[in-house]
Structure formats: structure tokens, C-alpha cells
């Protein structure tokens, strides 16, 4: 059932966001922070897509495009496309072990605040998903 799956994905996004916050706090772990933030966004978008019965592909660029479409059709209040692509770039950098280069310029707290804002905006959807799944 789509709503059950959406709820699981949203729970994952929340857990990953919590981990990203923990990573951002001192002593910070930038590599882990961007990776958790990235997956949190992806699961958030996947959850909204599932709850809205919108099909999606697992490719990262397709999920970012989906985020834009969900914004354009007013399902989401913010366009997360560019942010997801940026996080994907940073995540790839850290995955290849290049974490020192780009992350120096990133504000980890800002990442988490933005993810949290996004998560708060999704709370209405979250409660809808939860109510729906309980039916």
C-alpha cells in the first residue's frame, strides 16, 4: 500500500535528518552529515511521491527532477531540485574520499536547518500520511 510505504520512507528521512544534525554538532563529521542529509531529502521526496501515487525512478537526478515537479504542481512548497543536486555532488566527493576539498566551504548547521525546515513543512503531509495509513 502506498501510504504504508510512504510512512516508512518518511520515518527513514526523519532518522537520517536526526543523524545529520548529530553529525553537524561538534565534534562535527561533515562527510557523514552531507551523506545523511542527502538520503533524508531523497527519502522525503520518495515518501511524498508514494503518498501522492506519483511513480518515480531510483536514479538521483530523476528524484531531483521529481522534487521540482512536486513543487511546480504545488505538492511541495519549496523547490528542492538544486539543493538535492548540490548534496549529491558533495556526497559523491566524500564517497570518493575528497571530503576536504569542497566541504570546507559548506555550513553544516545551515544544511541541517534547511533539512529541518523541509521536514517541518512535511509535517502536515506526515500527519496525513499517518492518518491515511491507519485507516
Amino acid at each position, binding site marked *: 500500500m502506498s501510504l504504508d510505504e510512504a510512512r*516508512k520512507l518518511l520515518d*527513514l528521512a526523519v*532518522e*537520517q535528518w536526526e*543523524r545529520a544534525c*548529530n553529525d553537524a*554538532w561538534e*565534534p562535527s*563529521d561533515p*562527510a*557523514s552529515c552531507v*551523506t545523511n542529509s542527502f*538520503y533524508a531529502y*531523497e*527519502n522525503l521526496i520518495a515518501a511524498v511521491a508514494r503518498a501522492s501515487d506519483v511513480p518515480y525512478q*531510483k*536514479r538521483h*537526478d530523476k528524484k531531483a527532477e521529481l522534487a521540482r515537479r512536486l513543487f511546480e504542481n504545488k505538492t511541495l512548497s519549496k523547490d528542492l531540485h538544486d539543493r538535492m543536486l548540490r548534496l*549529491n*555532488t558533495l556526497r*559523491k*566527493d566524500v*564517497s*570518493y*574520499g*575528497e571530503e576536504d*576539498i*569542497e566541504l570546507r566551504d559548506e555550513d553544516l548547521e545551515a544544511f541541517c536547518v534547511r533539512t529541518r525546515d523541509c521536514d517541518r513543512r512535511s509535517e502536515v503531509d506526515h500527519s496525513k500520511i499517518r492518518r491515511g495509513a491507519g485507516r
Partner: protein
Amino acid sequence: MSNLSTSAVSQWQGVVDSLRARHGDGISVVLVGSVARGRSTEESDIDLLVIGERRPEAVCDLPRCHVQVCTETEFIRNLALGEDFEAWSVRFGLPLYDGGAWARILRSAEAGVWPKWQAKIPHAARRLFMASALLKMGDADAATEETVYALCHVVRALLLRAGVFSLSRPELAEQAKVLGYSQLAHLHEELRHPGGVSPSRIRLAQRYSKKLLLHLDRSAYAKFSKEYRERNRAKSSRHR
């Protein structure tokens, strides 16, 4: 090092023009990764390396384009440190445009430095711990992806230690097989291709990666693992 044909260069001309317009003629733009090797697949990203006097904030409008930026100094420093991305780029990167830095890098003494396989151990361990955490929380897709990164680092370490230069990601399995690690090659291919891998296969790949890391350098793995656990423990106690 290979050179691109005129038609291939013209294919990238728009990207190069846009980067030069944004950052000036002093930059160098190099195609790296599986596209540069002519071994890209449907899942492959386009990887560009952009080198500037100052680190450019490079943006590429092409879909699935990943841009790695650095200064000439940073690039040469990493070559000297034995980082394999820079060493790979020097050997297989295809220059799309050179404002001068790329030619200087290729002429440098550091261009001949063999990458240190030991540098791959913490990179692999980090991905492995991340993959393990993701699997525990139930995100199999993300765990698969992080496990693939860990496997890649492990394969590259094994190859470099054996005196073999690792190629692009789609070529790693074949290289691992030739080196005698057919199960590693199989797991790498299985996880790399989309289509839902079971958690038990992901766990198997993680266990095998750990075993190989211990085989490669037990003390380096143990040191990283200890630091990782201590950092997490310190955070948990602080935020409890």
C-alpha cells in the same frame, strides 16, 4: 594519456565555453571517470575536473554531470600525497580545454607518483560504517550504494598494492577477477546494478569488505574503527 577526437571535443564545446565564460580562460577542464575511458553505462555520471588558479565554483548544466573543482596547488599536493583520483586523472583524463595548468601538472614530478593503496583503507572503512548504519535503519537502497563505494575502495586498494592501476568503475570487477578475487568482482557487479538487492546480500558484501580491509591493513582498519566508535560514543553521551 589519450587525446579526444575533434568531434568529441566539439561535443563538449558548450560546456567548456560556459565554464570559461564564468571563470575565465585560465581554467583547465578535464573529462574523467568512465566517460573518459569510453566505458560509461546508463548509470554512469559525467565527471568533469575543473582546475583554476583559485578554486572555481563550477556548475555544469548537463544532467548527471558531477564537477570536481580544485586549484593547481591542491591537485599537485594530492598527487604528492598519493591520492588515486589525481593519479587517475593524470593517466586517463581527457583535457577538453587547457588554460595552462593541466600541461604544468603533466610536466610535474608529482605526476609520476604511484598512489598509496593505504589511503584507501579509511575511505573504505568510512563508507562501510555508513552503509552498515543505513542498512540497520532499513534504507536498503542507500546501504547498497554506500556498500558499492566501499567495495570500489577495497578493489582499488588491492589493485594498487599489487602494482596494477585501477581503471574506471565499470572496469573494476574485471580487474578484481584477474587479480584472483572473483567473489569480490561478483558482489561488486551484483550491487552496482539497480534492481533491488536483498539485505542479506548487502550484509555479505559488507562482511567481505571488512575481511579484506583487515587482510590489507589490520592496524589501519582497527585505528579508524576505534576513532569512529569513540567519536560516536562522545556524541551520544553529550546529547543524551
